[in-house]
């Protein structure tokens, strides 16, 4: 097997402080930050023995944008568009997590219709995130083109819906404290209904193409195992944690918003390997479709924003709040401290991608370089969120 990632930047390893690299047989390779398999500007410093990874150090921070400090200098509302840019695949769930934290802080109520809209948009976000991450994962395994393009073709349909609602495809800036910015445009629910009804056809096709594929199984089964105990100890959340068999989904645990009204199951994995992480996402897609189906059926008429919510001069009383939701990547939380001023005194993001990434070395040790690429793909990171 060729070594796609080791082709560049290979240097002779020096003996490190612990004496890990021995006798010049081991290679220290910097994979990234410009390598296409790293999903952005991310570097893995790996020490290789032959093709086997014996040490791995994730290096990030290339995309650091000072998000938290900027947010402490702008008004509460002014941070909302910046949250779009954390995990730029899932701007609507980022909006929701931030809005939830501020609503807790300021004690705002959300009208029923807005809650439904939030669930619908969040599940649409989950659809497009999981669809594209499956495509990316296959790309990392060397299935160049087809799976990713198929996934993106389907993702475009979701983005079209999102665009007609929020005015932007990715940087939605849609939620407001106490509701949503605007109501659904006429005919939107019917369009969403068509999308939800057609989605299973895409999933069946995608699965027929991929899930039973022997190359995919050979490359993923037994690769990058993450034991449940280790996952819990490391604070891993989201599909990665559930692939290791831990039943922890904030939609069930916290029941934030109105998730207690919907019937859905939480898929769990057995082995915690890359295949399980792939399958969990495919299964979650089907559950999301179920939630969407119920939400589109039950959505009531009414206002979409709390009339008490102020756009300008918004000053929540002094205090602190932590709002968290199940974003497609895991637990996304915002911790806010208010001193009663127009800006948050402290603004902290708990990014799921970053915390899921910290466990990368444990999953990669003993596997080949090509597998390390696949394992990284199965973590589902977005560097905008890792580095902030």
């Amino acid at each position: 097997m060729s070594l796609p990632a080791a082709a560049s930047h290979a240097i002779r390893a020096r003996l490190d402080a612990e004496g890990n690299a021995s006798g010049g047989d081991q290679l220290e390779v910097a994979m990234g930050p410009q390598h296409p398999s790293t999903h952005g500007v991310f570097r893995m410093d790996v020490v290789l023995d032959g093709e086997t990874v014996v040490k791995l150090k994730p290096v990030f921070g290339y995309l650091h944008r000072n998000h938290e400090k900027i947010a402490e200098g702008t008004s509460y509302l002014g941070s909302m568009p910046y949250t779009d840019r954390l995990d730029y695949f899932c701007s609507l769930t980022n909006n929701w997590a931030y809005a939830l934290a501020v609503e807790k802080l300021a004690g705002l109520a959300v009208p029923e219709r807005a809650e439904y809209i939030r669930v619908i948009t969040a599940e649409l976000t989950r659809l497009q995130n999981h669809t594209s991450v499956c495509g990316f994962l296959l790309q990392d395994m060397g299935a160049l083109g087809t799976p990713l393009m198929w996934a993106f073709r389907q993702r475009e349909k979701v983005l079209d819906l999102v665009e007609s609602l929020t005015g932007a495809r990715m940087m939605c800036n849609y939620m407001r404290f106490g509701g949503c910015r605007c109501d659904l445009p006429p005919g939107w629910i019917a369009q969403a209904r068509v999308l939800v009804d057609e989605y299973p056809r895409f999933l069946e096709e995608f699965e027929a193409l991929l899930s039973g594929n022997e190359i995919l199984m050979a490359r993923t089964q037994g690769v990058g195992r993450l034991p449940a105990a280790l996952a819990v100890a490391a604070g891993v959340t989201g599909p990665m944690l559930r692939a290791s068999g831990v039943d922890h989904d904030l939609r069930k645990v916290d029941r934030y918003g109105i998730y207690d009204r919907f019937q859905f199951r939480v898929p769990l994995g057995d082995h915690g390997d890359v295949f399980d992480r792939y399958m969990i996402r495919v299964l979650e897609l089907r559950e999301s479709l179920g939630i969407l189906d119920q939400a589109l059926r039950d959505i009531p008429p009414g206002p979409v924003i709390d009339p008490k919510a102020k756009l300008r001069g918004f000053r929540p009383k002094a205090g602190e709040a932590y709002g968290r939701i199940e974003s497609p990547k895991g637990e996304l939380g915002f911790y806010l401290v208010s001193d009663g001023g127009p800006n948050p005194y402290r603004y902290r993001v708990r990014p799921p991608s970053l915390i899921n990434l910290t466990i990368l070395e444990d999953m990669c040790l003993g596997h080949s370089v090509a597998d390390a690429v696949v394992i990284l793909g199965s973590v589902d990171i977005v560097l905008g969120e890792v580095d902030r």
Partner: protein
Amino acid sequence: MLGQGIAKGLLQTARNLVATYVDKDRLPTIEYPEERQKLPEATRQFPFLVHDGDDPSKGLRCVACQICEKECPPKCIYIVKSKDKRVDYKGQTQFYPAVFDIDVSVCMSCQICVEVCPFEAIKMDTAFEFSTPDRFGALLLDKHRLAKSAAHYREIHPADAAESDAVMAAESAKAEAKAKGDAEAKAKAAAAKLAAVPNVSPEAQLPPPNSGSDSPTMPM
């Protein structure tokens, strides 16, 4: 059996290839510069300043209150308030922006300026083809390039524009009623004073119309 997966995969993709000829859904790409997609009504790109009437220099709704400048998250708006006041399209005496610049290379199209504007003066445009060989000046739009007519707004966002027009109509009706009430009250007071002091002319007693109703409260 080895190779089965490849055969199955190729069958799937072959089906897809054939379907692109019959199913529009399978071939979603368009030939962009020649063929254009109809954008949804909510589409937003960059802000523009709305003006009423035909003359952009006179009809700008903006009164240089600088709320958008303050609220803009990436701080891409730069406003210099005028020293003098002038009569706006509603007949009220207002400040106007002596300078109003938006750096669209900094703007992140978040629409917050539109939401916080109390005068319906700034709205989102749908134009996006701004590419230019000029690195600096061309993307810094001044008020002459930002000004677009209310008719343009009604064309690109009909539903929003109708709502905005309704808000403006309600506001001007309220302002008119208030002005009328004020004027009547003042006239009455003046008449009463006049009756008491007969040798002062009534014009000198009347205050300028609508003073004090134009400067908005600043958000803190």
